[in-house]
């Protein structure tokens, strides 16, 4: 664990500091100026055709009202105005906020003390533990959704446990409940992200020099003060990365909603990604779908920039 994470830090740093290197120094035989472009062209062609161009087309489509079949009409920014005024769409972004709480805030709040504890404990079996808690990240979301649908089922394991401890009144079909379906889906997100966040924070904490802890202890700091005075400030960067990753994951939630609730019951778990799909391919509101997709993309860009800007500033 310790060795691999220091290696990680080392390569990351090296990547940043090595100056633009040798192969282009002038004294050697001159390379044709077209060589770099020859290496770039195949990748760029595929990338431009299947990612950049569709992105631009999305922005263009978002200015039209189009059912996908007949001729579209130009409506300017009306689809964007609708994102703000349509209660369904506004609701879907509101649901994302709740999901961010479960995907990002909760895992970081739980992961910080967990990682602190585990780094401090130097317990045996940490490597195995890391493998286990990271597992939810590599399992296909559809599989995760199938598993949790079962757990939340009226006859599923969660209700079995509740009935076994005498809490029969709490047992219910969790995903069919108007108020509880969204938190229930959110909790799946917590389950998926908690391992990633903890492992990320542990890697950061294992890089903190032990002298800092010794100094804190000489000042008479207990484990709690030590955590707030030494550990927490040292892993700001990791917290920023964890927040960026998990917030983006919350914004991109699609497979999970599609398989567990399909946005229901009612619209209580509809999220923007699901609205993009539903509007474009079920309701024939392609322009509106494109507008939601563009708003989603802009949000992802903005959050990545803001979180990293804050982390950069605080590190200085």
């Amino acid at each position, binding site marked *: 664990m310790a060795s691999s994470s220091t290696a*990680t830090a080392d390569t990351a740093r090296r990547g940043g500091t090595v100056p633009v290197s040798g192969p282009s120094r002038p004294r050697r035989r001159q390379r044709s100026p077209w060589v770099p472009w020859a290496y770039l062209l195949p990748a760029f062609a595929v990338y431009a055709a299947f990612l950049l161009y569709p992105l631009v087309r999305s922005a263009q489509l978002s200015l039209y009202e189009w059912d996908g079949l007949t001729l579209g009409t130009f409506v300017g920014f009306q689809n964007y105005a609708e994102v703000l005024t349509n209660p369904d769409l506004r609701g879907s972004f509101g649901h994302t906020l709740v999901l961010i709480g479960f995907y990002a805030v909760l895992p970081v709040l739980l992961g910080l003390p967990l990682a602190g504890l585990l780094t401090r404990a130097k317990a045996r079996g940490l490597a195995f533990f890391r493998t286990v808690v990271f597992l939810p990240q590599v399992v296909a979301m559809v599989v995760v959704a199938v598993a949790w649908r079962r757990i939340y089922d009226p006859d599923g394991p969660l209700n079995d446990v509740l009935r076994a401890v005498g809490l029969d009144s709490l047992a219910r079909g969790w995903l069919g409940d108007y108020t509880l379906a969204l938190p229930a889906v959110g909790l799946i997100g917590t389950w998926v992200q908690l391992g990633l966040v903890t492992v990320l924070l542990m890697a950061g904490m294992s890089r903190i020099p032990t002298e800092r802890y010794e100094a804190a202890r000489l000042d008479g700091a207990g484990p709690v003060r030590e955590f707030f005075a030494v550990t927490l400030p040292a892993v700001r960067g990791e917290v920023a990365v964890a927040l960026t990753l998990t917030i983006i994951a919350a914004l991109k939630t699609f497979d999970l909603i599609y398989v567990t609730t399909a946005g229901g019951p009612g619209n209580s778990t509809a999220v923007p990604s699901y609205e993009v799909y539903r509007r474009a391919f079920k309701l024939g509101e392609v322009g509106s779908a*494109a507008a939601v997709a563009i708003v989603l993309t802009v949000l992802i860009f903005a959050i990545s920039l803001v979180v990293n800007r804050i982390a950069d500033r605080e590190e200085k």
Partner: protein
Amino acid sequence: MISRGERAANYLILFAFATFAIWPVLTILAAALGPDDSAAAAAAPGAGLLGLHPENFAAAWRQGRFGQSMLTSVAVSAFVVACATVLSVMSGYAFGTMTFRGRNVLFYLFLLGIMVPAEAIVVPLYFDLRTLGLTDTFWAIALPQVAQSIAFGTFWMRAYFRASSVSLAEAARLDGAGSWAILWRILVPIGRPAVTTLVVLTFMWTWNEFLIPLVMATSEELRTAPLGLAFFQGQYTSGFTLLAAGAVIVAAPVVILYVFLQRRFIQGMLEGAVRE
């Protein structure tokens, strides 16, 4: 330094956390290996093997038509991984070791692609490819994913090439090796760990991708494994056993790879994220 009581508490928390992480996985595994609970099978329960029922996997494979969808997934993943890796190695090489006009602007353009969600490209892709008569083809599923993977791959390989040994490449150049030979005979073989990580991550993302195949594949023959599982869930409602077995089948390739190469997975996902 750490008291016995604290140590015990630490192990308890460690255990509780690991249980939380593994419980849903075990739920699925246990259901997949348990006796078939569907109405048809419950009438005539089989004996099982030591109380386990591995025959559920065969039944799920047949009923969920996973033979077809797993084959599609293998083909799509192989194509995306092969193309994206070769193209990313080449573009990463150009960005990492050569100077040319517009290098930074172009690199930022590639970086952009790491953040663009599939939702933002899938709508116009569907309608434009439909105009060309290309929806519901292998290419409609694979090529957008190649493009997505190239964005990350270029960024990943550029970092490797920038950190790679300049002196070795220089020595080879003095021996008369061209840039093509230096790339494939020296830098790529030395950089096998970086390339392996890229391959493993690309494979995982492609295998698990859901939205793009969902939109592009309308015919059953082109459904990828996760899509096949989602449809199986819709049709198969008489029990949970075979659905669980199907879920295990779909998750297995990536999970098995993860068991063997977990360091590559974890390092790649953390380091890739840090550099974003």
